[in-house]
């Protein structure tokens, strides 16, 4: 698609997330899913993207105080930045291990907090970068290429 004119389009979406607000968790993922459907992206790719984003949203709701989701879509890929103000992750390598969880009882009662979030985000993205500072917050960058 990328010809002599370079990028054909860039679409940006921004959402905010409140820590602890499970009622609205999933709203950004839902909106992104609608946009990707309109852009005629294939179903499998959409599913990968929205599952990774939803996991990231649940992480912010479960662990952080507040966060933002910045989405940038062009004709070849989607880049999602989920940044939160929160406790941060002391040991990212440990957090990436399946089954490792620091989720509260309340989060587990919602059906989450099994320590599958970060590994599942890795599985569903082409690129995943995590930066975190204890006591300040965490930023997750996810990239999925459109086939």
């Amino acid at each position: 698609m990328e010809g002599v004119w370079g990028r054909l389009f860039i679409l940006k979406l921004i959402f905010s997330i409140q820590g602890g607000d499970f009622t609205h968790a999933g709203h950004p993922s839902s909106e992104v899913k609608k946009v990707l459907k309109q852009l005629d992206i294939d179903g499998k790719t959409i599913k990968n993207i929205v599952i990774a984003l939803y996991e990231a949203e649940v992480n912010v709701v479960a662990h952080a105080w507040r966060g933002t989701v910045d989405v940038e879509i062009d004709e070849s890929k989607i880049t999602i930045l989920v940044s939160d103000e929160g406790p941060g992750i002391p040991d990212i390598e440990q957090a990436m291990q399946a089954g490792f969880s620091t989720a509260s009882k309340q989060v587990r009662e919602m059906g989450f907090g099994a320590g599958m979030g970060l590994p599942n985000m890795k599985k569903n993205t082409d690129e995943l970068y995590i930066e975190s500072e204890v006591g300040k917050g965490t930023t997750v960058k996810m990239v999925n290429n459109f086939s």
Partner: protein
Amino acid sequence: MKLKEIAAVLNANISCGADKLDEEVEMGYSSDLMSDVLTLDTDNLVLLTGMVNLQAIRTAEMADIRAIVFVRNKKANQPMLDLAKENGMCILESPYSLFKSSGLLFQAGLKPIY
């Protein structure tokens, strides 16, 4: 298996998506843990769960799951039904336990994912 057959086997109430009952699903998955549901690669399936909250519907939405059975006689509330309707899902409510519901559907020929 058609959704209406699933509803009949489970003696289930159809609380959303009565127009979807002729749709076919091949496989079933039973879990109260949404984290596990989100790791599935399959999508043409019915989810059986006792986790009755908005996030169960959201999880199904993201995982492209078109039908959910809430077991143990649990009822979906209005915000859940609104979200399910918006996403074109079928919601069934069965009085049976998760174990009994799964067993009956397995016996009736619904396949497991693994």
